[in-house]
């Protein structure tokens, strides 16, 4: 019994002695609620060390779908919101949760599909027309189905096409309710077309025989915005540090850093904070 007690004490001591996760707490830090598309591409791993070096502020990122990121921020669980669904972001500010929203950067969505292209949409530049072709041929389509920015864009495209895809739900239309990467894995697994942001696609490692089928439609424009959470609603917001992060992102230094980020030589995010509106 005694020995076991010693073993137990050792285990506990070991657990307690392990590097404390909160050890970095002395350093000022902020929490950013953001999207999987920016995190999965590796943008933050490139961008954040540059900011931290310049300011000494550590940035922690929670990467979830845009819908969930906004909900988390509404619960005051974050200092800065960096997502891509402009109407929802503007609502967030209008409801008093955000100080102001700034355009930050953009890229575009693409529709990817299997090489044999059962809906014959390859090379197209009209996203709504491509979706209509997918629906007509009942070729599979894997949707995020999770209220993310990408999902909201997809629903907008279906509306443009005048189609209600939910009538085919469970049949050719598969709402995964998952993140971008998980949805790509599922789509590729069953040969279903997927709407994805270009950054996630470019850095995705499990492409199989999938390739980009439709791109270049203005409707596929993907704008990212950044918003400081309002201290009026959320007194716990680290307002000074959060403001510095937002200011830096839209400054020349931040915008140049975003432009310099490359995956396999390809630029994935195009800064446009200084363009006014799109």
């Amino acid at each position: 019994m005694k020995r076991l007690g010693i073993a137990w004490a050792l285990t506990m001591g070991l657990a307690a002695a392990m590097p404390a996760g909160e050890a970095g707490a002395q350093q000022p830090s902020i929490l950013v609620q953001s999207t999987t598309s920016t995190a999965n591409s590796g943008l933050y791993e490139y961008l954040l060390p540059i900011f931290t070096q310049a300011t000494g502020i550590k940035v922690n990122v929670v990467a979830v779908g845009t819908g969930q990121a906004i909900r988390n921020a509404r619960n005051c669980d974050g200092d800065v919101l960096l997502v891509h669904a402009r109407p929802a972001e503007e609502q967030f500010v209008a409801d008093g949760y955000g100080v102001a929203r700034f355009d930050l950067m953009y890229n575009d969505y693409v529709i990817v599909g299997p090489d044999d292209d059962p809906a014959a949409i390859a090379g197209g530049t009209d996203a709504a027309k491509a979706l209509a072709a997918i629906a007509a041929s009942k070729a599979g389509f894997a949707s995020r189905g999770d209220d993310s920015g990408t999902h909201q864009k997809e629903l907008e495209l279906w509306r443009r096409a005048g189609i209600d895809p939910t009538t085919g739900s469970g049949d050719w239309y598969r709402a995964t309710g998952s993140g971008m990467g998980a949805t790509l894995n599922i789509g590729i697994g069953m040969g279903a077309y997927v709407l994805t942001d270009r950054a996630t696609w470019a850095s995705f490692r499990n492409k199989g025989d999938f390739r980009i089928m439709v791109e270049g439609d203005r409707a596929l424009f993907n704008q990212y915005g950044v918003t400081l959470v309002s201290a009026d609603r959320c007194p716990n917001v680290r307002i000074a540090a959060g403001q510095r992060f937002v200011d830096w992102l839209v400054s020349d230094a931040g915008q140049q850093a975003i432009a310099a980020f490359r995956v396999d030589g390809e630029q994935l995010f195009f800064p446009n904070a200084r363009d006014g509106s799109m």
Partner: protein
Amino acid sequence: MQDLADAVRMALSLAMSGDAGFIEIVLLSLRVSLSATAIACLIGLPLGALIAIGRFAGRGPLIVIVNALMGLPPVVVGLVVYLNFSRAGPLGWLGLLYTPTAMIVAQTILVAPIVIALSRQVLEDLHAEYDEQFRSLNVPRGTAVWALIGDGRHALMTVALAGFGRAVAEVGAVIIVGGNIDHLTRVMTTAIALETSKGDLALALALGMVLLAVALAVNALVMGLRASARRSAYV
């Protein structure tokens, strides 16, 4: 199949590399899950013992409920802990969301029913043997509880290991309350989920193998201690 071969190679080189970020993730996994298991045992063993030897109204339904709670879905536990620890929640003022502490709390809630339910069964069986003796010697209940836990320690170690297995393998709760933040709350399972979502299946699988190896090492350590404790008991 190519992925599997790649994964084995990657798992080995990861384990060998001593990469600081990787070791940080492994250590945080151990810290969170071992702490949760330890706290769950501190709470759960006495409770399991009390239910085992107690005779009170509603004991039967209580046992059914505790047994059922072994199947608590991690995602639900994560959500409940999130809602409580969120700034908008009742415990928001603690500022614990997205910290390892929140992850320990969530895993403790997951592990405690396992410890209570299994230790209850182990100790009840043991108690059936000892009951008469306790009665004839007029042993107080508190003493009886500790005597039972002491004598059942080997079986209870296995109970603790079952709890640890549950904790270290779950992803649903820690990804919600921890947020999978790099260098802060990223553990092995959330790292595996992240690499899967990046489509880097080989790396995800490699991390899974390392996780298995870590669990194996913890189990081997406990078994080794148990064996040496037994040897010393008979010397």
